[in-house]
């Protein structure tokens, strides 16, 4: 309709003039809005990414599901085990995201072949699929130039001190009348029970403990949320009837707690930034309100209603908020990539949903920041023309 089109064109014309009437102030308001949008977009993106990131970070803490022998078998056997065949029944999890390990524990006498020193220690034999625990290196992959005639083993620092062994030394492992040997691949200090253990390959420990094809425990690391881990455990329990499948709740719950805290912190920071942005915009708008009193008085004098005049100024605020949001949110997402690298060591993946949310929030901030313009509604032209406040 031409009439409506003419008036829309006039509205746009006046709006353009309003926006560029004071370029310095336009720059300041845009800067405030863009900065607010940038920081809030960055925090929102990190927040959105944090859940996924935390799940990934927690995976490095170790497994989140364990499969152990049933309690009934515990009553009859001091060292209960479960069939190694169960290990193969555990569905494969993506190797880059999770993994599983089958472990057998035994107590043996350990001797330093070179010095003749001996000590009782816990032996851990393990087999892996995927990465379960960075504390359990795959000897085969890292053996380098070590002679491969003997199996490798990793010796905990306390055991190493007691035996006075060094890397490349050969140690003897004795249990009852059986004896095996392994070459020290490395000595590690983890600060936990592994400092008193010797880790080696599963077959060796099975032979020494006379537990062929048996495991003490299966540990599984499953990626995903607490709910998905629970669901995976339930499915696994249906497959493995003769063992007990337990999710390690403390990890899932800790995960949820930490996410909740980080999320709360980021939300609070975002709210604070947006509140500060509102204050900045309000300061500029207070200035605008004072500056435009005469214009508003004149507009009302020539027939402008409070609504039509205010709609011009509010639309100006919306346009500023939209422009500031578009610029700021784009910058913010770039910042979040850097922030993700700084906090988690990995760039935060840009989340598309963050962009419109940030723009919408910035528009809202601009509208709230335009609150001082409400004063213009009640301006009486005669009062303004008389020069009264």
């Amino acid at each position, binding site marked *: 309709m031409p009439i409506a089109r*003419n*008036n829309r064109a*006039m509205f746009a014309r006046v709006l353009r003039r309003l926006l560029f009437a004071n370029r310095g102030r336009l720059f300041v308001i845009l800067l405030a809005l863009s900065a607010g949008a940038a920081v809030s977009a960055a925090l929102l993106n990190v927040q959105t990414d944090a859940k996924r990131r935390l799940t990934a970070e927690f995976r490095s803490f170790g497994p989140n599901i364990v499969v152990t022998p049933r309690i009934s078998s515990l009553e009859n056997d001091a060292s209960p085990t479960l069939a190694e065949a169960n290990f193969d029944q555990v569905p494969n999890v993506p190797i880059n995201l999770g993994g599983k390990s089958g472990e057998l524990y035994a107590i043996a006498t350990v001797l330093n072949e070179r010095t003749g020193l001996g000590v009782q220690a816990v032996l851990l034999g393990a087999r892996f699929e995927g990465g379960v625990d960075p504390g359990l290196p795959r000897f085969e992959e890292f053996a380098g130039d070590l002679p491969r005639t003997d199996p490798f083993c990793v010796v905990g620092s306390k055991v190493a001190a007691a035996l006075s062994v060094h890397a490349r030394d050969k140690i003897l492992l004795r249990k009852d009348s059986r004896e095996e040997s392994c070459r020290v691949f490395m000595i590690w200090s983890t600060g936990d029970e592994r400092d008193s253990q010797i880790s080696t390959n599963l077959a060796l420990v099975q032979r020494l403990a006379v537990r062929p094809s048996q495991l003490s425990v299966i540990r599984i690391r499953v990626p995903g949320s607490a709910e998905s881990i629970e669901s995976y455990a339930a499915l696994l329990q249906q497959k493995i009837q003769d063992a007990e499948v337990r999710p390690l709740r403390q990890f899932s719950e800790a995960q949820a707690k930490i996410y909740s805290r980080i999320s709360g912190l980021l939300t609070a920071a975002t709210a604070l930034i947006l509140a500060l942005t509102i204050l900045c915009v309000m300061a500029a708008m207070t200035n605008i309100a004072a500056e435009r009193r005469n214009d508003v008085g004149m507009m009302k004098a020539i027939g402008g209603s409070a609504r039509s005049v205010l709609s011009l100024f509010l639309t100006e605020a919306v346009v500023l908020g939209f422009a500031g949001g578009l610029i700021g949110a784009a910058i913010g997402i770039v910042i979040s990539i850097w922030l993700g690298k700084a906090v988690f060591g990995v760039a935060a993946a840009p989340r598309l949903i963050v962009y419109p949310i940030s723009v919408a929030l910035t528009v809202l901030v601009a509208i709230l920041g335009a609150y001082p313009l409400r004063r213009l509604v009640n301006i009486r032209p005669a009062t303004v023309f008389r020069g009264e406040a």
Partner: protein
Amino acid sequence: MTTQPLVNPSASIQAAPEMPPQVVLENLVKEYGTLRALGGVSFNIQAGEWIALMGPSGSGKTTLINILGGLDTATSGRVAVNGVDITRLDESELVRYRAEKIGFVFQQFHLVPYLTALENVMLAQYFHSLTNEAQAVEALKRVGLGDRLEHLPGKLSGGEQQRVAIARALINQPKLILADEPTGNLDEANEDIVINIFRELHQAGHTILMVTHDVDIARNAGRRIELTHGHLTLDTTCAFLETPKLCPHGKPFPSSGCCTTLDAKSCNS
């Protein structure tokens, strides 16, 4: 400043005495706290009249024109324009009244500084109903600003700004033009231009109520109303004379430059 001999406008009033007045003010009172700006002013305005509203500063001229234009409200009394009592209108009705019935011209021009001359005129169209750029251009051409359409007010002289304000006041064909010292900020050359425009408007049948301190400008009006301390002290349709002589009834011509209200009848008879 050249003054024009006055064409006796009271003839139009007397030619149709039965015509209802366009504006009726009855016992108009306006108080600002304890200050009484208008103390019961009453007079009528016939359609097509040009009235010079005079008086010393603080006499209530601007207050009266503001109330008449719907920019301010009366404390008491009645103001009827074309039969509608504007003291009873609510805010939204006053907005429509200002947009449709009144054309304002202010001493300070009151143009929007970030809109061009053309956009300032179109703004009045926008608030009235719909914009028509061709009409706005034509209005500016009529006041001699056809080559200043895209100039911002800051790039125009005082006289040019006042002509933009006049074009804006006229763009919606108002019934009543209220001018508050329209030449107060202008030099003599621009004053002549602006007054000539008002003269043309008057000849075209517009009703004009113009506040002025300048007797020379007031001579262009067909009727002079004078306020003192919020009270009407003079209302005459008597002719302004180049050389003070005697009033038609033989009394000495007063120093104010015209005959008194009471003399008007004999003056016009």
